[in-house]
């Protein structure tokens, strides 16, 4: 990690001197076991840049805010898919972006780690020892083997070395994924439930949704300038809105299911939606279910296509006509 950080800062300084507006990367967080997105705007600021196992954020979405500026962005493998998606959807000018790839050793699942520390433990030091995370509290040292404590998405990650980047920070990282794990295991478990079981499962979770819209805000596939759920349509049905601010079970379902369909076929798999949810709704189950269905129905999209749902093939399954 140390070497990556050195190369990262060097490259960032060089790019900033060449005149890019921002180098979007990560800096240390203010709470233990965390990092934060960081926008270096001047070469002097690059010393705050880091890359470590807490750098969970997908920074690609920020690019939408600067469509006409030259920016650089640090991407992990899971973030990278979002870049080409946004370019294909004409939100971004690829020539203005410098994509800086990092070889990733997996991201720690912060909530799981914190949950296993003794209650009210004060974290005094955190050390990233390549294969393990060591946390020292007032009650001693706690060792977390990374393989067991990386995020669920990392355990099935097939792309921890991002491809098609402009700069790669360091050598390729060894695979992180557990080859035995089925990426759709949890999806299949829900599929196997009876209708009543599915309803009970989802109602319990969706009822908790606060409609904070963090999942939408963080998602790079949610790139509409004005979201459907923000639209008030004056004059049409007396200005009916698709959704009010009321938090009710039907409205919550409406929001999540429609958003899942808007994202379907375009999901980069970064799982940020699930990470940011303050009430722990496993949103990737919805996205993965749709990804699985799309794969089964339509196969993979051609590499240069806008997305599998934007392409047509006479061989597409068609039960209707």
């Amino acid at each position, binding site marked *: 990690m140390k070497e990556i950080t050195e190369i990262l800062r060097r490259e960032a300084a060089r790019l900033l001197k060449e005149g890019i507006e921002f180098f979007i990367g990560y800096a240390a967080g203010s709470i233990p076991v965390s990092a934060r997105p960081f926008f270096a705007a001047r070469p002097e600021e690059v010393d705050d840049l880091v890359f470590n196992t807490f750098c969970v*954020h997908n920074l690609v979405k920020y690019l939408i805010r600067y469509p006409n500026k030259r920016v650089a962005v640090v991407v992990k493998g899971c973030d990278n898919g979002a870049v080409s998606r946004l370019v294909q959807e004409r939100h971004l000018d690829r020539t203005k972006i410098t994509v800086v790839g990092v070889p990733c050793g997996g991201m720690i699942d912060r909530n799981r780690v914190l949950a296993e520390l003794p209650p009210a433990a*004060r974290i005094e030091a955190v050390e990233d020892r390549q294969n393990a995370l060591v946390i020292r509290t007032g009650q001693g040292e706690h060792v977390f083997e990374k393989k067991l404590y990386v995020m669920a998405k990392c355990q099935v990650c097939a792309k921890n070395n991002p491809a098609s980047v402009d700069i790669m920070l360091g050598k390729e990282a060894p695979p992180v994924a557990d080859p035995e794990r089925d990426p759709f295991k949890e999806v299949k478990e829900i599929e196997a439930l009876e209708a009543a079981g599915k309803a009970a499962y989802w109602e319990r979770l969706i009822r908790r949704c606060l*409609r*904070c*819209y963090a999942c*939408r*805000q*963080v998602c790079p596939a949610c790139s509409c300038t004005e979201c459907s759920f*923000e639209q008030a349509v*004056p004059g049409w049905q007396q200005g009916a809105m698709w959704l009010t601010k009321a938090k009710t079970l039907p409205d919550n379902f409406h929001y999540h299911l429609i958003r899942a369909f808007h994202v379907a076929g375009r999901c980069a798999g970064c799982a940020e939606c699930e990470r940011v949810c303050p009430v722990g709704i496993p949103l990737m189950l919805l996205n993965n279910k749709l990804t699985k269905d799309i794969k089964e129905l339509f196969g993979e999209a051609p590499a240069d296509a806008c997305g599998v749902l934007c392409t047509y093939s006479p061989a597409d399954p068609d039960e209707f006509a």
Partner: protein
Amino acid sequence: MESKLLKKDKLPSFLERLMESSLLVAPVREDGLLIYRPVSSVSEIELNPGRSVLPPKDWFFQQTEAICRYNTAGGQLLLEELVTEKNAVLYGLHPCDIRSLAVLDAVFLAEPADRYYAARRKNTALIGMSCTAGRPECFCTAFGISPVGGEGADIHLTDIGAAYLVEVLTPKGKELAAKYQEFSEEKVAGLEEVKKARKEAIAAQCSVGVDQGVLPAKMAGVFDHPYWEELSRRCLGCGICTYVCPTCHCFDITDVNSGSEGERLRCWDSCLFRDYTLHTSGHNPRHELYQRLRNRFFHKIKYNYDRYGIEGCVGCGRCVALCPVNIDIREVIATVRGLSE
């Protein structure tokens, strides 16, 4: 003020006794998340709660609440007011959350008082619970709040080992306390010292020292500083901080129809949402995210103080813990202090 001891193993019985005549709203852990909600059995309760995800403001100022029902059939208009008047006991509030009710009172009970909030506030007794430790994000002491102080609660419990020190602080608390006479014991000497030591230990863990009442004046000078735009760069513009904040009180009002009948609802809203101040004409006084983010911090630290004489933040740390991009209000406070010196 009356003080007694309540042995820890007697607490469930006391709460059960309360449930005989009141709805009990208590901290419950669901799927790992601590929230406050009505319980039907004491066994559901997490008796020594940490910090909940959602603040207890939800009991008094519900996220979604029908304020009236209307019927417009036949060209007429019938309105039915919908106010909840139910006796309840809210158990397990930490001092930061108890203080948050004072902040919300200043808003909702100011003339003209909000009927919905006022009814619940009047009919709900509060049992506070001192903290036993500070979390990494806590900084209540910055606002003069004591982690073992029960001011604002009707009864306040402090864990002192095998028992709780029970302080009965109000006439309503006295009524509640009458229900546990057989469970409680006279307190022994020395408990005040235990409480004081506990407070100091926790206070030492809370990182920020803020001059209460001085910060609001310092904010005025930094309104136009580029710091706010820099801070907003990583902000997602979601509503997490506003929804988990125990003092945030912004709301929307909306009608939901079913034919010629319907309900007028009041729902939480967030000042960070793009459409929060969007006029019908399309004009938006805070059209940039940095303006909305800046407005939120000014509201918390300055405007609330200017208007009501009480800071809008209670240092509970929820926003710090849950912000997906680690925007930390303690850093904002420290930066404002630094910029204005």
